């Protein structure tokens, strides 16, 4: 008898895009989560509405590891087009479930094979013909539930959440799932070792995606204006604003304290957001790489005219159109230097869904505090997939509105003030916003050279001192942005730096390195640029720093080499970009291979 493997394997489900399998997949994910088992789900979907192959992978991990794995122990396929690939992808000893209407040869003898009467059961389900394909997905939910031991009660909870309590939809799906489970109990004999069992490791968590969290964070940050243009994988961020703002930010008489506008393109989206930011509103836009490229010119104006605005980039893999539905961390250098002329930008790097919430409100505070564009870099993996996350925490600091002068303030100053003067030595000037009725309130915003009073000038010294002040302001930003999370280890011999959604892979890789008797790393997760002093200290400590990121060129390494040239030779890139989230195995192997060369 082979040894049972409980709560420690990956499932991949292969379907056809547009067939409605997402409901089934998320139902499985949520049911497992409700069983208290740490779980993660990755949707690998095509840029297409209907017809191309799509995969969904679920990892259950009793140890709490939620990074993607390359190895798949349980594979389900409903798609003849990917059947061969799917069959080949099953780990030896694994389980292969397939729709029995696919009449293709099964050439492997080292795995357990389970046919599923998907078409037949969908036909028997009491639903209209148009819903048959959709309900067919519930057949594999029922069969997997039976064969892996997923509790029916948690499946029902997941369905009830998904269908928002609509009994008819819940029942018709659940009936199919139950029928499929019964069929499996009577007709399939389990011969693989994989199953799940209830744990108690998820009670402190909820499940959410990063885009929803970002939108909610911005709403709790007092967001007043957002403009956006649809783009995968960022659209659901702005759409979530439209879902939650009416619930959270209308007055008792139904009036809005906010406006969200779908623009005609990204050029306009950022233009509107900057107009609103100049007008004194907490303002943002959200997009992905191609949109960022279009926004470059306006981002430079906001930097130079010193207008607060928050720009979310939910990254997808580029360059160019790239793979619109695949993830990467490829926009870091572009955004760090975005727009022409001398400048470095402020970037926040959320590493989890609850951090997307936190940085959602913090970014608005920083933008107004610093009178500057603030970028937040998420990615498709973080933004669109469902993650286990700590519940969202109510902001622990009041709204930061920055140095804004109103009528009463100007009255006290006898109307004497200068828009671009560094009165406090922090590089941050005072500003007024339209609607201020004091006769000395008005100033003329511009992207052209200006003096302390915002008047046009071509004077060489004035230009240079203004640029020096902007640099000083950037140094102030260094003291205000989120500090890194450092996991020091006694006797660590190497440093690892990573950011955003790669954290789970790095955490697990560190455990794997230990198991393999490899080097002992200390881990710094960077949460913002510019680098705070903690980053400098960390880098100083180690002879070798491995910088892990999901891009081809090692973009953070490029930036750190540029801003800390004295340490550049310490930096080693662990970078890789194929559109999929990094795996712990790859991170570990690559670090070990590089260590061997030394």
């Amino acid at each position, binding site marked *: 008898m082979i040894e049972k493997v409980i709560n420690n394997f990956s499932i991949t489900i292969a379907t056809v895009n547009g067939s409605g399998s997402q409901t089934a997949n998320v139902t499985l994910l949520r049911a497992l989560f409700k069983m208290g088992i740490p779980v993660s789900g990755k949707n690998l979907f095509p840029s297409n509405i209907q017809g191309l192959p799509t995969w969904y992978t679920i990892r259950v991990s009793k140890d709490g590891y939620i990074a993607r794995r390359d190895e798949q122990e349980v594979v389900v396929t409903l798609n003849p087009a990917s059947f061969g690939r799917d069959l080949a992808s099953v780990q030896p000893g694994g389980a292969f479930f397939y729709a029995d209407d696919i009449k293709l040869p099964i050439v492997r003898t080292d795995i357990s094979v389970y046919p599923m009467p998907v078409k037949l059961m969908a036909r028997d389900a009491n639903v209209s013909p148009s819903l048959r394909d959709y309900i067919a997905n519930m057949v594999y939910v029922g069969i997997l539930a039976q064969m892996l031991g997923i509790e029916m009660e948690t499946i029902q909870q997941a369905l009830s959440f998904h269908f928002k309590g609509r009994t008819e939809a819940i029942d018709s799906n659940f009936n199919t799932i139950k029928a499929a489970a019964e069929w499996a109990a009577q007709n399939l004999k389990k011969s693989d070792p994989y199953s799940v069992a209830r744990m108690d490791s998820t009670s402190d968590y*909820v499940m959410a995606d990063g885009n929803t969290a970002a939108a909610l964070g911005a709403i709790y940050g007092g967001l007043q204006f957002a403009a956006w243009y649809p783009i995968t994988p960022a659209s659901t961020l702005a759409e979530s604003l439209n879902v939650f703002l009416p619930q959270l930010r209308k007055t008792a008489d139904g009036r809005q304290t906010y406006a969200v506008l779908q623009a005609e393109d990204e050029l306009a989206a950022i233009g509107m957001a900057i107009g609103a930011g100049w*007008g004194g509103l907490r303002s943002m836009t959200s997009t992905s790489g191609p949109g960022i490229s279009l926004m470059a010119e306006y981002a430079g104006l906001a930097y130079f005219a010193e207008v607060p605005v928050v720009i979310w980039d939910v990254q997808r893999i580029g360059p160019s159109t790239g793979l619109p539905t695949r993830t990467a961390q490829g926009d870091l250098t572009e955004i760090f230097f975005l727009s022409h002329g001398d400048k470095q930008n402020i970037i926040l790097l959320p590493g989890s869904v609850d951090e997307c919430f936190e940085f959602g409100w913090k970014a608005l505070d920083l933008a107004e505090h610093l009178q500057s564009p603030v970028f937040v870099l998420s990615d498709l993996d973080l933004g669109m997939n469902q993650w286990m996350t700590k*519940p969202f925490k109510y902001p622990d600091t009041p709204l930061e509105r920055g140095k804004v002068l109103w009528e009463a303030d100007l009255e006290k100053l006898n109307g004497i003030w200068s828009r671009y003067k560094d009165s406090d030595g922090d590089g941050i000037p005072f500003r007024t916003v339209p609607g201020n009725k004091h006769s000395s309130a008005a100033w003329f915003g*511009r992207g052209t050279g200006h003096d302390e009073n915002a008047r046009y000038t071509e004077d060489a010294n004035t230009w240079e001192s203004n640029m020096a002040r902007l640099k000083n302001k950037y140094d102030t930003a260094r003291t205000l942005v989120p500090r890194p999370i450092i996991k020091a280890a006694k006797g660590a011999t190497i440093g690892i730096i990573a950011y955003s959604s790669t954290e789970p892979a790095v955490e697990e890789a560190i455990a794997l390195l230990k198991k393999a008797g490899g080097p002992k790393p200390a881990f710094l997760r960077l949460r913002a640029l510019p680098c705070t002093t903690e980053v400098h200290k960390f880098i100083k400590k180690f002879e070798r720093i491995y910088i892990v990121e999901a891009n081809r060129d090692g973009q953070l390494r490029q930036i750190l080499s540029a801003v800390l040239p004295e340490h550049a030779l310490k930096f080693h890139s662990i970078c890789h970009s194929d559109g999929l989230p990094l795996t712990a195995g790859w991170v570990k192997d690559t670090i070990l291979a590089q260590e061997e060369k030394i």
Partner: protein
Amino acid sequence: MTTPATTQINKAGLSKNDYRGLPSTLCQGCGHNSIASQITTACYDLDIVPEEIMKFSGIGCSSKSPAYFLNRSFGFNGLHGRMSSLATGALFADTSLRAIGISGDGDTASIGMGGFKHMVRRNAPLVYIVENNGVYGLTKGQFSATAEEGLNLKHQGINQYMPVDICMEALASNATFVARSFAGDAKQVKELLKSALSHHGVAVLDIISPCVTFNNQENAFHSYTWGKDHEAPLHEISFIPALDEIELFGEFEEGTVREVKMHDGSTILLKKLEKDYDPTSRANAFQMLESAQLNNWLVTGLLYIDESKPTLTETFNLVETPLNRLADLDLRPARETIDKINSMMF
């Protein structure tokens, strides 16, 4: 600002001086200066408080001009062709404010055409003035999209393409106020500006504003044709003769066509709309623009108006208090809501 007792003041208690801007750095004789001066007068006449106006512009000669009027108004000189979006966002800050945008033919009809038309279709409440001279002045004399077919410019050759008619584009985008004027017809410019400033929604005002320096060919729609014998290559121009702005003397009667003499003696044909022209009919407006094109007229006056449509900001059902004056308490949801939000997650 204090005003001498002898100075005339309007109902807002302000003198003309309170509406002035910085001295213009545009060429002497530029039509844009005359428009700036009429904006000053129109705002004074309407008793608008300068602090209750926002000024916007894109990039180009025209876009510099907001600095030359209403010094006490907030202004933002944005990017080339992108003023429409900048203004659209800013309009939400305080909806009690009025807004004036100044653009040019390059800024609106070339690089900014998309944004312009979308701003128009949203009925964003601002006066959008195109100072239209059919030429790129600030980069020294290239064709713009409103340049007429066959126009011959030094170092550019002959324009092969049909011009963009800004009024036609505005109408096609469902503008709620469309007018055209000529910078030299100060009285009409002022009256149209006053109507535009009083309009409920987007008011597109296409003002033919001759470029004294670069659009200098005879019979050109947008010209003063000053230098037909001037042979200096465009990029070496260092001497710009000081010319007077062209003005129309005497009453320009409705319904009449008037020849306007340019500096070199060439003419353009201005056609003022008939007294009984009905500007509430969109079909009329299209027809008028079509026949003007056939007759080689520049038809001036209020072509179309519709006061019934809600403005962009009205469609949002915003609170009474200007958004930019809301207190923190209005902006951050109450602490107890966070548990409900977390319970909405799975």
